[in-house]
């Protein structure tokens, strides 16, 4: 190899190194769902039929096999401002469900929320924005049954335009919503939105 081509090689390596350092120093944020995962992009090619709803029974554990989520569940109420309460921020592997509402697997809309991160780093639903249509959400219940949901869409909403009815209204089949923070982050205002995964019951184990 000539000295000239060696020189070029070193120059290219230096550029790559600078780019890596610069790019890596920028903020890495949690995954954001792509437009293809929104309802507007249409249903996934293979959509499982809705299963008959189960009688109500509280959830105890939630799993999302594709993203290695496996978390215990706690009951949540409403905060003073009417928003859904959230699990304690100190616990990075804890999801909650709205216990005055529909339990997962029963007819209606079960609402689940968990942190995307806390002060120490990523938390239970860090990867929620990476979910795709057709992925599974499994919920173990107190009655010993496991309710299996398929993901219908993953959408991201600005905090100021959060669609209450679309997310929280009772469905007339067994549906689930899994909610976490996302959609851009600024040091001043924190996360600017919520990522919401929508699913419906397709089976029971």
């Amino acid at each position: 190899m000539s000295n000239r081509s060696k020189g070029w090689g070193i120059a290219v390596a230096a550029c790559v190194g600078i780019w890596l350092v610069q790019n890596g120093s920028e903020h890495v944020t949690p995954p954001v769902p792509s437009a293809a995962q929104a309802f507007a992009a249409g249903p996934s090619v293979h959509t499982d039929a809705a299963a008959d709803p189960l009688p109500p029974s509280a959830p105890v554990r939630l799993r999302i096999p594709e993203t290695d989520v496996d978390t215990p569940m706690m009951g949540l109420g409403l905060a003073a401002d009417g928003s859904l309460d959230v699990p304690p921020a100190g616990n990075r592997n804890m999801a909650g469900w709205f216990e005055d509402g529909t339990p997962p697997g029963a007819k209606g809309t079960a609402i689940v929320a968990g942190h995307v991160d806390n002060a120490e780093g990523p938390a239970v639903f860090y990867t929620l924005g990476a979910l795709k249509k057709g992925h599974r959400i499994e919920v173990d219940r107190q009655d010993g049954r496991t309710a299996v949901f398929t993901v219908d869409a993953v959408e991201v909403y600005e905090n100021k335009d959060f669609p209450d009815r679309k997310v929280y209204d009772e469905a007339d089949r067994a549906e689930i919503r899994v909610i976490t923070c996302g959609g851009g982050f600024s040091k001043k205002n924190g996360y600017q939105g919520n990522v919401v995964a929508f699913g419906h019951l397709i089976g029971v184990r």
Partner: protein
Amino acid sequence: MRTTVRLFTRTALTVAAIGAFAVPPAYAGNSETLEIYPSEATPGTTVTVNTLACGKHGRGVGDANSLGAGEFHLNPSTHKEVVVGQFTVPEHVKPGTYGISVACDNGKTARGDLIVKHRRPSGHVQTGVGGSVGPDTAQVTAGAAVLAAAAVGGVLLLRRRASGAQGH
């Protein structure tokens, strides 16, 4: 066997559901109208009831035990022919329709239905503080390593060039 058990469970649940919403027979018959405001309420709401049944300057005792709110008293309102009373919807009552009855001192009764609905959450959730947001340390480390290697390579190349030039 399992199907039988499920069928039985479902039947039992249906029976229980019918039982919960059925109008107790004791209230049927000559009861007068009990106005309930609001007629649909969420847990924690104060509900006001009034009726003409108790008559002018009358009094009565209300029964909200169907939803666990106990008994309450009805007293004459500013409109003397109407008696008014209040109770609070308990926090943990299930959604559904609950019969409220009033027994007046004059022996008359009144009844009405209260529909309990649960609040839904509103607005976005507060589930992150940004602790996962920050530099990608692996990438920065890799970049630094590549830069270091390029620097070493550059120094070696320059030295070789220098010694090569001397050799000529």
